């Protein structure tokens, strides 16, 4: 399961991580977000121990969403060493996420 991150635990789980972190910014009312949710779940299994795969509900985490200027959803941010290393906006095939994540390992 992808880890749920929010305003309260974002720094601890994402920024301070010593592994690459994927954050899937989504919302309940966003149809396309549901299309990429299974991909994110796959990644959480396939990259277990090598990367941290998370999801962040923009409605429940307004501070994080504002900090990273998340207006477009779905947006997936890739973090390494606490900084944004890559970004994917919209619904794309799984290999796009895999390629971006592999580049950070």
């Amino acid at each position, binding site marked *: 399961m992808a880890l749920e991150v929010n305003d309260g635990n974002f720094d601890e789980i994402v920024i301070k991580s010593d592994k690459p972190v994927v954050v899937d910014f989504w919302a309940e*009312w*966003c*149809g*396309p977000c549901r*299309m990429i949710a299974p991909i994110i779940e796959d990644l959480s299994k396939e990259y277990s121990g090598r990367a941290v795969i998370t999801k962040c509900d923009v409605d429940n985490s307004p501070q994080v969403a504002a900090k990273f200027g998340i*207006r*477009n959803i779905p947006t997936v941010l890739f973090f390494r060493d606490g900084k944004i290393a890559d970004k994917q906006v919209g*619904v794309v095939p799984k290999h796009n996420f895999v390629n971006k994540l592999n580049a950070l390992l």
Partner: protein
Amino acid sequence: MTVCVFASSSSRVNSEFGEAAEELGSLLAKSGIHVVFGGGGIGLMGKLADSVLRHGGKITGVIPAFMKEEGWGHHGLTKVIITPDMGERKKNMFRLSNAVIALPGGIGTLEELAEAITLKQLSLFIGPIIIINTRGFYDSLIKFLDNMVAESFLRSEHKGIWEVVSAPSEALNALNRKDMGNEEWRKIARI
């Protein structure tokens, strides 16, 4: 309440159309109605969005990724849903909304309005469908719909699916009017 607005992305149209889009935006914002639209940054869509935001309202754009990449999206929206294609765009717009308002527009607007009417005819969308007939823009479409009834391609009851108003202020009143329930339209859909 969330209202979906369909409108043109053309900037070359008569200024009265732009004024109608701006008036609608301000009225929706002041009524605390969340607006959903196609996410465009120019034309009537752009004017609608600018006006909603200027009056402190909330507006969500639903735009296909290719349009976003072309730079056709509005940049100041409250939220933007990026869809893979045009079909998903419409699906998301309908799913998010309790009512539909059509401002004047071209083929894209016509197609969205036609789908709204179709869905409601089949009870797959419930809620008011309001056509804002600025400058009599939709007169010929309304005539065409009347002809569908005259030639029995549509039942006369179906004319109750949509409501035509001449100004944005009337659209706000129409939003609050009672609507025929879910099951009833489908019962008379097989003509």
